[in-house]
């Protein structure tokens, strides 16, 4: 190993540049280093510039801009339709009989009775990654921005910030049946729910998200693949501090 490789995690940085690091803790270590290392920031920018030149530009379909314009316009009026979480649980159990025990969908059944009965939890600083085994991981702090709970108080997911990025941790949420996805919503009081993006079906338990500045409250819902313009049933909510 060269002196440069010892002082700068060059191999890790290269893997990071091509998105070949999918472990949150490993990403956190690299992102923490980037915060304090100008040389590595420049290296990453250089790698991204190189990679951005590998694929020739190609015109996107015309309707892509229309979809973007629609999402950047005024939010649609809310159409909140309860989801039957009992049915969701049954689907999950039927589709993956061996995985039913992992799921908290049992606890989510109660959520159907209280759509936005979210438990708002204030910001909470916790020492996280306690079970981390990777190098340097013991020094990383994960800031819990909010805990998303079902109506019965069961934890469903967390919103955490680490290494300058925000993630939704879905460890307790469970994997949805095929054709379904979790969707994240901003639930600011007095405003219609605004989609903050799709979180996948729960098989990826840590999903990077972008929370707009000023977000105070979020929730996740179980939606058809591709998402919905408005939540068809909120699972949980949480207090957020941007």
């Amino acid at each position: 190993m060269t002196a440069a490789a010892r002082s700068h995690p060059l191999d890790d940085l290269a893997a990071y540049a091509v998105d070949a690091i999918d472990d949150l803790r490993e990403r956190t270590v690299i992102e923490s280093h980037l915060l304090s290392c100008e040389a590595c920031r420049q290296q990453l920018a250089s790698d991204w510039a190189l990679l951005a030149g590998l694929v020739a530009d190609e015109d996107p379909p015309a309707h892509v801009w229309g979809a973007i314009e629609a999402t950047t316009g005024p939010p649609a009026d809310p159409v909140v339709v309860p989801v039957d979480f009992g049915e969701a649980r049954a689907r999950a159990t039927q589709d993956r009989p061996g995985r039913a025990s992992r799921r908290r969908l049992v606890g989510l059944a109660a959520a159907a009775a209280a759509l936005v009965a979210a438990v708002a939890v204030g910001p909470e600083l916790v020492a996280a990654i306690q079970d981390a085994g990777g190098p340097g991981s013991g020094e990383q702090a994960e800031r819990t921005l909010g805990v998303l709970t079902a109506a019965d108080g069961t934890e469903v997911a967390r919103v955490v910030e680490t290494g300058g990025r925000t993630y939704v941790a879905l460890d307790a949420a469970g994997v949805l049946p095929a054709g379904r996805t979790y969707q994240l919503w901003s639930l600011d009081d007095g405003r219609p729910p605004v989609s903050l993006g799709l979180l996948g079906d729960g098989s990826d338990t840590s999903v990077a998200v972008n929370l707009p500045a000023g977000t105070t409250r979020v929730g996740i819902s179980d939606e058809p693949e591709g998402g919905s313009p408005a939540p068809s049933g909120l699972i949980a909510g949480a207090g957020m501090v941007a």
Partner: protein
Amino acid sequence: MPTSRSRARSRARPGAAASDAADDELVRSVGAGDQRALAEIYRRYAGAVWAVARRVCNDRVLAEDVSQTVFADLWRRPGRFDPHRGKLRPWLVAQAHARAVDTVRSETARQRRQEREGHLAPVPEPDVEATVHAAALTEDVRRAVDQLSPEEREVIVLSYFGGHSYRETAQLLGHPEGTVKTRIRRGLIGLRRALEAQGVTP
């Protein structure tokens, strides 16, 4: 967030305004709620974003989702782009690549679940040559990729174009994980040198 800012409500179309503004200036305008600035950024870089999303996802519908998300995210959080840390085009492409990779991994996980449950034929193992073909590289880039050692070429192709993590790539190739990361770094160095030798400045 969008609702807290004074948003320009005029309907924008790509290239409708600010066509001579610098990228940084456009991003600042996006931060002020100017949808026309977003439209101009889209006009400039949607082709790059769409291309990388399409090549990595290998699926037009998924690539559309990725492209929409990248520009919608820029609208919601323009402050995430730091002009002191690089140019807008590579940053947008990096955002698109990251989202495309997430999408591919998610889709692959879904397919593998269905495969295990017997609903789907076995998911084929990734193939380096097929991935290169699907990436539809330009002649310059293809020549540069071909100049890499076979070991560097396969890890670059599988990770960047195939969306595989270094651990997956190590498993697929039967190589140590550390070796794969080192080969990714050397592959990037090799690509840069090969492109510069062809007069292509990354």
